[in-house]
């Protein structure tokens, strides 16, 4: 039982299943395959962003600028689409990923080369990127009628019963799993967060690994920006405001340690789905959507408490950390 409780992924699957079952007693259609597919589709963007955030957190950093990156890149892509409707969609998507990766690279460079704490860097770039979105658009909106039909419709086109948006998320999940568990970069990411000193002695360039993690997070934010703008058919300065917290929440709920080095792709996906189920269930069970913010807050705090308990007995401490809690006990 204890081992079962320690496996975060299984625990989350059970909790999500219980939640879905509970909600479907109030609203009979809630557990239907169609609705579950809807919830997955609705959570796709969060899943993609959470995977980028997770990679950054694994390296003992945090990226609070993802939502601002999404807003700026989304605005750039939407304005390009409105101004040059003839540009092929593939080029726009490449552009989105490119701009996103570039903004991520700025974060990564500041963390890597100047060794400024990631939270300070991304708090700063968060306001800068969103401010730039305002400068770019002059505070204006890009509305659905200014966007081309292919720009709007491709992510919604169903293929094999799921919209393309969902398939993109599935591909990214598989890709993230491959990168983090099968490539040297993944090993380096876990190592440089789990034990930076040991990682250096093992020949891992921590700064470079963090830089790559930020670039990856930025690129995924860029991809998400197109998906977001196309899904909601509008681009303005404040899109996805505060969404960076949801990505952090999804990671924390999914058992990814904020101290770095611990976490799995499945955890991040399940953490996102957990939030997605709650978000979709609130209107169904008659709770005001205004309650969502407080609920995510409670869930984050509970998840942090829970993570701390789970990590406490993770291993035998041979070399004590300078802030090891055992000291005062």
């Amino acid at each position, binding site marked *: 039982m204890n081992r079962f409780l320690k496996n975060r992924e299984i625990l989350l699957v059970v909790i999500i299943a219980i939640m879905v079952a509970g909600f479907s007693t109030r609203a009979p259609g809630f557990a239907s395959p169609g609705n579950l597919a809807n919830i997955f589709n609705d959570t796709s963007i969060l899943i993609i962003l959470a995977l980028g955030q997770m990679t950054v957190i694994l390296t003992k950093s945090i990226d609070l600028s993802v939502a601002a990156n999404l807003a700026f890149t989304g605005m750039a892509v939407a304005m390009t689409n409105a101004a040059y409707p003839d540009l092929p969609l593939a080029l726009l998507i490449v552009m989105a990923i490119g701009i996103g990766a570039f903004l991520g690279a700025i974060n990564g460079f500041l963390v890597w080369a100047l060794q400024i704490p990631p*939270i300070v860097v991304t708090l700063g770039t968060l306001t800068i990127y*969103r401010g730039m979105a305002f400068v770019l658009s002059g505070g204006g909106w890009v509305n659905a009628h200014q966007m081309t039909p292919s720009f709007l419709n491709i992510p919604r086109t169903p293929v094999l019963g799921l919209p393309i948006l969902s398939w993109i998320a599935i591909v990214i999940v598989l890709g993230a799993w491959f990168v983090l568990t099968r490539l040297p970069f993944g090993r380096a990411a876990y190592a440089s967060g789990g034990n930076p000193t040991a990682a250096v002695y093992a020949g891992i360039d921590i700064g470079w690994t963090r830089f790559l993690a930020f670039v990856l997070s930025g690129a995924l934010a860029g991809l998400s920006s197109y998906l977001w703008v196309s899904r909601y058919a509008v681009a303005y300065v404040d899109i996805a405001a505060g969404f960076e917290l949801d990505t952090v*929440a999804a990671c924390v709920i999914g058992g990814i340690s904020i101290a770095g080095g611990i976490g799995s792709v499945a955890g991040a996906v399940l953490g996102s789905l957990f939030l997605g189920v709650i978000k979709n269930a609130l209107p169904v069970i008659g709770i005001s959507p205004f*309650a969502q913010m407080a609920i995510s807050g409670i869930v984050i*705090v509970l998840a942090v408490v829970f993570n701390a308990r789970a990590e406490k007995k993770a291993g035998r401490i041979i070399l004590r950390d300078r802030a090891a809690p055992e000291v005062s006990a």
Partner: protein
Amino acid sequence: MSEVATTKRVIPDRLGTKTSRMLASWEVLLFGVAALIFIFNSFASPYFLNAWNLSDATFNFTEKAMIAFAMALLVIAGEIDLSVAAIIALASTAMGAAAQMGIGTPGLVMIGIGTGLLCGAFNGLLVAGLRLPSIVVTIGTMSLFRGISYIVLGDQAYGKYPESFAYFGQGYVAWVFSFEFVLFIGLAIAFAILLHATNFGRQVYVIGNNEFAARFSGIPVERVKFILFLLTGLMAGVAAVCLTSRLGSTRPSIAQGWELEVVTMVVLGGVSILGGAGTIAGVVIAAFVMGLVTFGLGLLNVPGIVMSIFVGLLLIITIAVPIIARRIKEMNR
């Protein structure tokens, strides 16, 4: 070798205050920046050099600076509180709800400050009591506190505050000196004494420099951290009273994004984000710098969101410059 052994070696209690070192200190540098901005602003806009305009400009930073004092102590001790703006929202909502029930001004102030203290205690309990990382905890409570405001208010707003309540944000003590400005100066002095002249302040520095050593020297690390979170909550409550009184209304989006500006103020003031170093004087000057920059840009009709770009750049540049300077110095060696 014997020469070294016979030489009397003295470890000074404090580093010598050479004029050159004093001139190169962060505070003096920052003061120079403030003076430059002041001169630039007075040339850029004919409306700048006016006692009443300058007095109005202080409202840009006094409320944020009050929180920044407490935040500076927290950052020096190696922790951070990102929930301060959300505490303002919750405290303001509590005061608004109480005002609708007809509670008078003294009661409102107590409710505002009490809410701040409660929120601070909650953060402190989680960080110091359960030993959780303060960044994530306060990201969570930030969402929780503001979320409660959204549950209470939704898309509504509270108004109808008693007339005497307006004094805290709109009143003047003497001539152009507003109540907020006088409170800001008083709090600056109080925090400077607390940090630089008391045992408690010393303990804050020790914890930030070496928590491990602090525990071995018998410093009650958890208690100090809890008190610091309590203080930050208290200051957020005080700021909530001033801000609510100044605006005369409460929306759940009140003080949105202030946590960033407060942290920027603290870091700009020369407080090390890694903990262990910083002064209140630096934070005070940083408050003036930020107030002058935003006021000057405002006079030049720069929109608020563009100003936030400057705040973000200021934050990154002020941290990057000393690091780059140190690199260059090391390279020349």
